[in-house]
């Protein structure tokens, strides 16, 4: 049972008495013993500086921001005392230590981390962290700030069984939504639904639906809507939405939501972050699948610069010194390059960022017009033939390999032009270059083949490139038949008009003169030419590195394509000093086939199917909701996923169906999102979302609207696999592991096991009560328990330690006795519920050798490829090495459900700031352009709790150019109110009733483009300890320092058509942060 007993029925005295007897109770937390004894012991310490002792250090991974730098936490009597960089991690030392370096040699050696990393202690030790399950006080409204503590197991009972939980009528619990439980039935239904989706003919579709209803007559009540089986089962009405979630934990949570509970709704925050950067990356990386003839398997990722080795980088909308991924890892390479003269960079940003201060050139571009600059450069570079012809000519893998490349583009592929518009790639058969026929394959099966005049056979209708003026059919993935085509061509073959992909982009670039492009971008034509010249003067060691400033616009997807096109024009992909991708050690065991192939470790697995609330899993046209009309009630997103801004508004509109239980994890969704006030309004309404459960470490901006808040462990107390970032050339895996345990932290029992109160505990307890597959004594298969979080996490670490070779030749060394001793000693302060060597070892099958390898990895805070291994001559080892879709057939044939027209499939200039239905937005009278930026001392909604950081920057200012300030008669530090057409009052929807005005101080600078104002993320809180709350009738005073400053997101433009959501990029999915006009008034 949960031990943090303390229900509202007990008086405080009883409560304390009661909790005093049960060990490890929340109440103990408040009592000082731990603290006192600690101080006492510290005082009696003979040799003072014990932090330099390796036995008082644990390497783990920072999560103060998402960069995930390796950190070394120095402990004093089991309390985290100081954080430094983990010297094994490429994030904090350059070059990082050889992985084999004995641990003890690093006792007094640290790496560099940023100020947030340094203040991490204050996130873990925060007075406002919650320690017991909080339930919205019955009879009070959501967000009213009144809570009662209830025992963990009572909370689990309430959310699973439901009932009249708040005296507001019946609320469905998890059990009610756990409708479809039989994996076999689910599988059959899922297949039947696929059939329905694939059926193009409306009548036949309807017939299939009727057939479905007949076949599954006994199960119809498990569906959301039997007439629309493609909405899936009621299980989908449970939605799990997270803000910051990394692997490891992520795998456990998804196993719970998808594989165990059977809901398709597990959505992350990608689109609030740099969505269109990811989904442009996905579109660019879709690969041709000969079997289906489709482009599939694109990975949600993006490229960044090999910072250390590029000679010239254009950083566009990338806040290199203050944010990005991230300063400790990237900055030293930039400063070194600057001073040694080895490299230089330009910054394209309306705001003079700190990076701009050290840049060769700063281009204060007009917000949202980045593509214009890129297009101007593309035009100039192609017209002056300064692009990498070889790279742009390689039409397939063989050509790339033959010419010392690993990747190739669709630039030279011929695209069919129908009435002036580019559509699909032309297929050889359409030009009469191949004959469709049949043949028998190895197994004697009959297959269609396409044969050229000279007898070359293709298992699919091949693509065509122009070689010396002649159309040549080719296989993109062929490794032996290189096809090097003409990159620029506009031809008509057998009456079929065709252009190469690059030709199409070139013509788009030629649609305006350099001067016109400059005009649009609000810069000089000379800027464009200078940038283009420099960019094409460093071979493949020149890059464009882009981030949120480029992607978080309504035209984000196309801005990204435009800049990435430039990277392809110099052919820098996979090159040392070029554009690279992140690579991690495989932790699922699939590559090596062990030691633990996690995808196979299930006793049973539910089958989630149907449409997700974000409408991303299949297209509108395929769905049974399709009635031929556009626009749809809300946009569908066939090219993106994890649309953070769509989660809550979709639930508000109950489109495509109602979500009855929302579980928020590490999310400040209403604070983070542009026009987040609309999100708060929906969250506050139980009629829209009947049950909201949040996992949080405190009462946060979003979790304050929850019905239940379950306390979580901080990043210093938990497991996670943090992965890597694209600018890291080495193969790595960062392992976050428990370093401290808040003394007296409550524990709970699941399947009889005592584990700390945490997000894992929440999910596992639900799984236990509902007896979900994939968890429990046989969760990993007969006799292999999954009853503790470590059971999963250690298997993952074991896989990392074992490596990617089946024969184990890729394994890390075994920790020697000394390192094992250090490992145990360094964790001596952790309670058994957190660290029990026996339990840990058992989790990996008590394999001594494997256990020592696991220790080797844990001691080093992860696994890191050695410095020299990242490069092979001119190319990077961990290369992308695939096709890049400069021209995208898939995108070009996908329909925008708000306009009914297909998306454009290549880099094009599209004006910023248009509504979901494609209308331009004129906000008369709002004369400032609002943008936002991050500062090094603030992360998201999270670091407001770190007083050490607030001492550097206590409130954050609205940056404004001096000339504008003069015009408005503003002085430095004057207070101003920010309002916009969609928020004319300029205020936040705070907790029930209250409104929090967006009033902040201006900082007058020269380094802002006139007419543009920017504010930093992280201030102006109304929760997270900023305001008073009441728990068990006891007032808990808020800290005004946490409410200081302002947060301008509520001023950001609400979509005029949809009304309850920010502007979005319908192609790349981005939530839009930089396309709003605002009014600035002195108050």
């Amino acid at each position, binding site marked *: 049972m949960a031990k943090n007993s303390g229900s509202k029925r007990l008086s405080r005295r009883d409560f304390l008495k009661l909790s005093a007897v049960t060990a490890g109770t929340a109440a103990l937390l408040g009592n000082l013993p731990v603290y006192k004894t600690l101080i006492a012991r510290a005082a009696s310490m003979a040799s003072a500086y014990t932090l330099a002792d390796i036995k008082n250090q644990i390497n783990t991974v920072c999560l103060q921001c998402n960069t995930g730098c390796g950190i070394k936490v120095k402990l004093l009597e089991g309390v985290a005392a100081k954080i430094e960089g983990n010297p094994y991690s490429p994030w904090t*030392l350059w070059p990082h230590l050889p992985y084999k370096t004995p641990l003890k040699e690093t006792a007094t050696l640290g790496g560099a981390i940023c100020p947030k990393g340094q203040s991490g202690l204050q996130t873990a030790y925060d007075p406002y962290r919650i320690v017991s399950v909080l339930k919205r006080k019955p009879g009070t409204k959501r967000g009213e700030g009144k809570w009662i503590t209830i025992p963990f197991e009572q909370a689990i009972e309430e959310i699973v069984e439901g009932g009249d939980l708040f005296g507001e009528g019946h609320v469905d619990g998890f059990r009610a939504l756990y409708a479809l439980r039989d994996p076999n039935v689910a599988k059959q239904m899922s297949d039947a639904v696929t059939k329905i989706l694939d059926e193009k003919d409306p009548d036949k579709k309807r017939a299939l639906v009727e057939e479905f209803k007949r076949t599954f007559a006994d199960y119809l009540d498990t569906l959301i809507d039997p007439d629309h089986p493609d909405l899936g089962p009621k299980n989908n009405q449970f939605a799990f939405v997270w803000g910051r979630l990394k692997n490891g934990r992520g795998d456990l949570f998804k196993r719970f939501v998808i594989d165990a509970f059977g809901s398709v709704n597990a959505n992350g925050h990608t689109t609030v972050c740099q969505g269109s950067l990811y989904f442009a990356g996905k579109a660019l990386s879709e690969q041709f699948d000969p079997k289906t003839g489709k482009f599939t398997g694109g990975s949600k990722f993006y490229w960044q610069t090999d910072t250390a080795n590029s000679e010239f980088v254009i950083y566009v909308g990338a806040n290199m010194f203050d944010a990005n991924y991230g300063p400790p890892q990237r900055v*030293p390479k930039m400063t070194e390059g600057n001073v040694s003269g080895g490299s230089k960079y330009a910054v394209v940003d309306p705001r003079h960022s700190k990076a701009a201060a*050290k840049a060769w050139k700063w281009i204060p571009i007009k917000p949202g017009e980045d593509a214009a600059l890129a297009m101007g450069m593309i035009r100039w570079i192609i017209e002056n033939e300064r692009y990498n012809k070889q790279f742009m000519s390689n039409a397939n893998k063989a050509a790339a390999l033959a010419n010392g490349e690993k990747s190739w583009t669709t630039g030279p592929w011929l695209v069919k032009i129908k009435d002036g518009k580019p559509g699909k790639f032309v297929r050889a058969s359409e030009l009469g270059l191949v004959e469709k026929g049949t043949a028998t394959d190895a197994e004697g099966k009959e297959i269609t083949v396409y044969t050229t005049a000279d007898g070359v056979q293709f298992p699919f209708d091949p693509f065509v490139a122009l070689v010396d003026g002649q159309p040549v059919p080719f296989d993109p993935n062929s490794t032996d038949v290189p096809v090097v085509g003409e990159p620029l061509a506009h031809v008509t073959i057998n009456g079929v008009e065709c252009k190469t992909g690059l030709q199409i982009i070139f013509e788009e670039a030629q649609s305006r003169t350099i001067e016109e492009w400059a005009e649009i971008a609000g810069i000089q034509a000379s800027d464009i030419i200078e940038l283009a010249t420099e960019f094409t003067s460093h071979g493949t060691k020149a890059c464009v590195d882009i981030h949120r400033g480029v992607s978080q616009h309504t035209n984000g997807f196309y801005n990204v394509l435009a800049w990435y096109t430039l990277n392809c024009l110099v052919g820098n992909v996979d090159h040392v000093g070029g554009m690279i991708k992140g690579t991690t050690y495989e932790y699922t065991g699939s590559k090596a086939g062990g030691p633990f192939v996690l995808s196979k470790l299930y006793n049973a697995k539910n089958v989630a199917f149907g449409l997700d609330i974000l409408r991303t899993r299949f297209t509108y046209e395929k769905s049974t909701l399709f009635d031929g009309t556009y626009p749809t009630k809300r946009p569908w997103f066939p090219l993106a996923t994890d649309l953070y801004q769509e989660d809550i508004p979709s639930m508000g509109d109950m489109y495509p169906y109602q979500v009855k239980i929302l579980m928020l994890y590490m999310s400040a969704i209403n604070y983070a999102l542009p026009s987040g006030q609309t999100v708060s309004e929906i969250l506050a309404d139980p009629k829209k979302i009947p049950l909201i459960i949040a996992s949080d470490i405190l009462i946060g901006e979003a979790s304050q609207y929850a019905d239940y808040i379950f306390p979580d462990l901080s990043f210093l107390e938990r497991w996670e696999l943090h992965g890597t970032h694209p600018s890291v050339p080495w193969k790595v895996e960062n392992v976050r592991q428990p370093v401290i345990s808040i003394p007296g932290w409550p524990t709970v029992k699941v399947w009889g096991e005592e584990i700390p109160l945490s997000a894992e505990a929440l999910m596992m307890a639900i799984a236990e009560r509902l007896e979900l597959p994939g968890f429990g004594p046989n969760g990993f298969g007969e006799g292999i328990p999954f009853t503790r979080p470590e059971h999963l996490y250690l298997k993952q670490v074991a896989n990392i330690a074992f490596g990617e070779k089946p024969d184990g030749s890729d394994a890390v060394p075994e920790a020697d006795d000394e390192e094992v001793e250090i490992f145990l000693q360094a964790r001596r302060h952790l309670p058994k519920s957190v660290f029990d060597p026996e339990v840990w070892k058992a989790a990996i099958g008590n394999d001594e050798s494997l256990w020592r390898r696991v220790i080797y990895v844990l001691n080093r805070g992860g696994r890191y490829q050695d410095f020299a291994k990242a490069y092979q001559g001119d190319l990077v080892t961990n290369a992308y090495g695939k096709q890049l879709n400069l021209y995208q057939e898939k995108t070009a044939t996908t329909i925008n459900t708000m306009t009914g027209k297909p998306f454009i499939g290549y880099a094009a200039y599209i004006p910023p700031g248009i509504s979901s239905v494609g209308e331009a937005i004129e906000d008369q009278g709002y004369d400032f352009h609002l943008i936002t930026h991050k500062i090094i001392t603030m992360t998201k909604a999270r670091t407001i709790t770190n007083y050490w950081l607030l001492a550097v920057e206590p409130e954050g200012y609205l940056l404004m150019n001096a000339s504008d300030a003069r015009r408005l008669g503003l002085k430095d530090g004057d207070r101003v109110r920010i309002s916009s057409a969609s928020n004319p009052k300029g205020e936040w929807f705070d907790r029930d009733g209250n409104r929090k005005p967006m009033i902040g101080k201006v900082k007058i600078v020269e380094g802002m483009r006139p007419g543009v104002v920017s504010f930093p993320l992280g201030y102006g809180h109304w929760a997270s300890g900023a305001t008073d709350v009441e728990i068990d009738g006891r007032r808990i005073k808020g*800290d005004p320092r946490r409410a200081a400053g302002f947060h301008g997101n509520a001023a950001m433009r609400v979509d005029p058509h949809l009304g309850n959501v920010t502007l979005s990029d319908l192609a790349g999915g981005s939530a839009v942060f930089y396309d709003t006009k605002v009014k600035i008034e002195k108050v």
Partner: protein
Amino acid sequence: MSNVLEELAISVLAAAPAEGDVLIRMKAELERALQKPEEQRRWVMVIDLRKCVGCHACTVACVAENKLPPGVVYRQVAEEEIGTYPNVSMRFIPRPCLHCDKPPCVDVCPVSATYKRPDGIVAMDYERCIGCRYCMNACPYASRYFDFGFSNYDETPEAEGLIVGKPQGSLSETLPSFEYGKVWLRKREQSPIGNVRKCHFCLHRIEVGELPACTVTCIGRATYFGDANDPESLVAHLISRPNVMRLREELGTQPRVYYLV
């Protein structure tokens, strides 16, 4: 240990495109300096303003290392904007105590509670300091801060059992600091409360062969620390460059913190 690190530095240097991480090199040099008797060491700090990116990591690292209470700081990073739009730039100037060779702060102390060590560090004797704050007025660089005994958590709630609460929520601050190799707890009106405090080049770290907290965490690799008496040391090389300068030389304080411009 030093040899291992030397080797290590070498092995790493071999692989590195540049000189290898200066942190490794400086660490090795630190180990080397510690072999010598104290009076033969000459600690100096060099800060490359071209490399400082104004990240404030050093500031906070120092606060965390020395458990500095609100109102006390040893190393701010001053930011200055230069020029007018669109020709703008920014300068970031880290400002630790300069450990002057002719330290006015030391001259004025009535009880020698602040003094110049043979190795060049201008140190504090908290137990002797009477807290007259004369040295603060005497320091022309505003490098000294008085510990009034404030806490970041004074106003935060206790609320045992409902939230983590003040006692443990404030551990990041109430843990002892190890300045000068001693254990300093924050007990009311006891040293270092009521004393003037200042940068001490992380003496307690140097002594165990660990670089100063600000130096280790310098993201821009703009901060160098070492023994100027060691002709082979990085700092020795750097301070012989033509582009070094010191703050307000005209005062004749002869700082031991150099800036590269």
